[in-house]
């Protein structure tokens, strides 16, 4: 059924048209031949109608892992890699078609009960095509890298199987055209993140981190589910394409729309690790490093931002919800950036920087610059994957994640260091790296928004970003080796790990060139606000951050220690080091909100519910004791009983016949 979608009439491709013509091709899921009046389109085989194939390929890769993986030994990784590479090729083709202005939205009937009709389907537009291309590209190289990183792991095949399923979940979420399929894929990602963070479950701490990630994101999922349910009760549809229009047609009070949007946003907050649900992401570093790269770049956290972008029309109807998106984004950009400045674990620094960058994306969405947020999502996916993989290469070589034991690794790991520095420059938004263009677009939009505090939080965070990335680079690759053992042990990683680094470094550095192109693709009518020289303020902050970090971390250790003794530095240092007490606050909230009701419910369960159950059990036990006397164990006695019963039955029938 699905492989022959009604392509004709719902999907079209046509040669490049003047911009005026393409502006009609809205980036939303409404699928109509945009320039039909011009008569310029020609009906060709629509590659977009194969959009469902991209997640399916990944799923097939997963099936391959499950059934053939054990036999294929270390080559089992190829199932996922080949599937994702094919998916990437397909995505690129679809991207090319969406550039032409095509989009598709196909549904087949799936669940039909009474008046409720829930179709299943997929839609491909510019946003989806861009996301698919990015996800397949990044995750494919993450898998290639993992072949080297996970070599010899006892659960090698399971790792690849879970990664592939994870990506399949993300791809499904991207192409889903309704909330039901989206939510299912969303939960698959939740499951896979749990499995992969706890990949090395021999250490109970890893298992706890996995559980924490699962449970914290669950809080957001409950919100999302409530939002979906609310939307459905109001409009009787789960379709992304139809929802905003249906909601608008109802003329709901602003409070209802805000509540719906905020519930959906709560799901995104959990998945994208925004304040205050960010506490799971740093703990997720317990997983193998490629998983950190995957979660932080291509899949898990991107899904939250994507969700907001996908349901953006709903948010646009709810301005105060949009304000909250921006506020959460700005705060999430700032607070984790401060924490990242004092971390000593190289992966933790990157983890907090991810939260911070996701904050930027949310900030962008919150101030109405959807395309800027998505653009930052793309650039971030490339450079953060690059950074994590490079960090993984360092960890692989050094055997430790503690930056205090590293130093001077530049001499041992030229390729890793070079690519890591490229990623750092991109993250710190130094031109001409990609990060500069995307972050710049977000901050420019924030500057012209009515809430300048967003802009200033983002700008300060940009300075902090430059500070902590400089610190990481200096502590890891430069200076004198702090640990002789680590330094002696260090070596450049094998080619299978280095090549993905180099490949990922290219878009990390150069994707900024595509800024204008992507803007036209994703938001044809959008014009980046012209803020003049203000555009370079974040860059100044970044340079300041760089200089400060350079000054501090090339200075002798004693001077830094002296700085810490001054209360002006020590107080924030403690605050940052204690993660702004978010984990403590989380514990308190859990105790107050969780244990109190749990105690009451527990008592009810133990005495009332269990009491009833036990009473039933006792009754059955007593009846059984009575009845077992009848079982004498002699087969002939049973037979005799049957015979007597037949006699009685016949007599009764006879009397009945006489009576009747």
């Amino acid at each position, binding site marked *: 059924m699905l492989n022959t979608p009604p392509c004709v009439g719902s999907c079209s491709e046509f040669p490049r048209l003047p911009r005026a013509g393409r502006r009609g091709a809205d980036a939303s899921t409404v699928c109509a031949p945009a320039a039909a009046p011009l008569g310029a389109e020609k009906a060709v085989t629509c590659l977009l109608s194969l959009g469902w194939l991209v997640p399916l390929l990944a799923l097939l890769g997963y099936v391959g892992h499950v059934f053939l993986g054990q036999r294929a030994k270390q080559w089992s990784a190829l199932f996922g890699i080949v599937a994702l590479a094919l998916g990437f090729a397909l995505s690129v083709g679809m991207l090319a078609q969406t550039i032409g202005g095509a989009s598709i939205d196909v549904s087949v009937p799936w669940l039909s009960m009474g008046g409720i009709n829930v179709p299943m389907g997929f839609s491909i537009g510019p946003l989806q095509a861009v996301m698919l291309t990015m996800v397949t590209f990044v995750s494919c190289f993450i898998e290639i890298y993992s072949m080297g990183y996970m070599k010899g792991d006892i659960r090698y095949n399971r790792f690849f199987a879970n990664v592939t399923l994870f990506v399949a979940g993300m791809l499904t979420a991207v192409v889903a055209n309704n909330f039901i399929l989206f939510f299912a894929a969303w939960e698959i990602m939740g499951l896979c993140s749990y499995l992969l963070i706890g990949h090395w479950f021999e250490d109970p701490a890893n298992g706890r981190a996995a559980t924490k990630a699962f449970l914290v994101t669950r809080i957001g999922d409950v919100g999302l589910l409530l939002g979906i349910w609310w939307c459905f009760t109001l409009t009787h549809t789960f379709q992304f394409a139809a929802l905003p229009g249906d909601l608008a047609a109802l003329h709901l009070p602003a409070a209802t729309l805000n509540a719906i949007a905020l519930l959906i946003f709560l799901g995104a907050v959990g998945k994208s690790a925004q304040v205050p649900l960010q506490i799971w992401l740093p703990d997720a570093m317990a997983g193998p490093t490629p998983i950190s790269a995957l979660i932080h770049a291509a899949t898990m956290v991107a899904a939250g931002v994507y969700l907001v972008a996908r349901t953006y029309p709903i948010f646009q109807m709810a301005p105060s919800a949009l304000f909250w998106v921006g506020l959460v984004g700005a705060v999430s950009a700032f607070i984790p950036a401060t924490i990242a400045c004092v971390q000593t674990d190289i992966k933790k620094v990157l983890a907090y920087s991810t939260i911070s960058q996701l904050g930027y994306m949310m900030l962008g969405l919150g101030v109405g610059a959807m395309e800027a947020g998505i653009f930052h999502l793309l650039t971030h996916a490339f450079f953060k994957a690059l950074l994590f993989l490079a960090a993984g290469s360092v960890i692989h070589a050094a055997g430790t994640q503690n930056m205090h034991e590293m130093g001077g690794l530049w001499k041992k790991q030229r390729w890793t260091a070079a690519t890591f520095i490229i990623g750092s420059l991109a993250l710190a938004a130094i031109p001409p790296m990609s990060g500069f263009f995307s972050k710049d677009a977000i901050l420019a939009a924030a500057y012209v928004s009515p809430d300048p505090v967003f802009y200033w939080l983002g700008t300060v965070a940009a300075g902090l970003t430059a500070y902590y990335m400089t610190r990481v680079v200096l502590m890891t690759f430069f200076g004198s080796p702090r640990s002789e053992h680590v330094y002696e042990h260090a070596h450049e990683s094998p080619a299978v790990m280095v090549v993905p680094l180099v490949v990922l470094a290219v878009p990390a550095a150069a994707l900024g060139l595509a800024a204008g192109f992507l803007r036209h693709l994703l938001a044809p009518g959008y014009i980046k606000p012209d803020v003049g020289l203000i555009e370079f303020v974040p860059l100044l902050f970044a340079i300041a951050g760089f200089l400060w970090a350079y000054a501090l971390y090339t200075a002798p250790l004693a001077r830094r220690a002296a700085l810490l003794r001054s209360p002006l530095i020590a107080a924030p240092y403690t605050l940052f080091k204690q993660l702004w007490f978010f984990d403590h606050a989380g514990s308190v909230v859990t105790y107050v909100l969780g244990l109190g009701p749990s105690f009451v419910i527990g008592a009810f369960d133990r005495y009332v519910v269990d009491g009833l159950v036990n009473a039933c059990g006792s009754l059955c036990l007593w009846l059984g004791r009575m009845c077992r006397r009848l079982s004498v164990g002699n087969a*002939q006695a049973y037979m*005799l009983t049957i*015979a*007597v019963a037949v*006699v009685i039955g*016949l*007599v009764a029938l*006879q009397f009945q016949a006489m009576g009747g």
Partner: protein
Amino acid sequence: MNWPMVAFVVLGGITVYSGWRVATAPLVTHAALFLAVTFAGVGGLFFLLQADFLAAVQLLLYAGAVMTVVIFAIMLSEMKDIEEPRPRGWLGALRSPSLGALPFIGAVLLFAVMLVVYLRGAPALPVTPLPAPTNSTVFIAGALFKIYALPFEVASVLLLAAMIGAIILTRVEGGRRR
């Protein structure tokens, strides 16, 4: 002379008598032989009823196959006392070792009830049979392969399951012959 009635009484008498001996013969092997006679008697009754196919099957399957299985079972089960203690007196045969007179009372009661039921219903029952089918095999095959095709297949599955079950049950563990 009503020859069919004579044949019916003779065959029925043989059948019921040998059935009775199955219940009361002291020697297990004797009981088995009387069982064969019972089967044969029932087969004869089928002939009398012009159900040729069933009669043939009855003789082949019961008097042949089932009897063989029974005799094999008797031989394989290594009965220590193949002969029961001789009952004292004529009435002694009616008593069961475990349940006393109850089996006899139960059987007689059942027969009495059925007798009453049948005799009460007898006036409504036909006295003369319908014209016999010319070929009872074709007659039965028509029913089996048309109306009862599904039950027929189910029966075949049942027989297969029974065969496999019997093999599995009696298999010597470890594949080792004693």
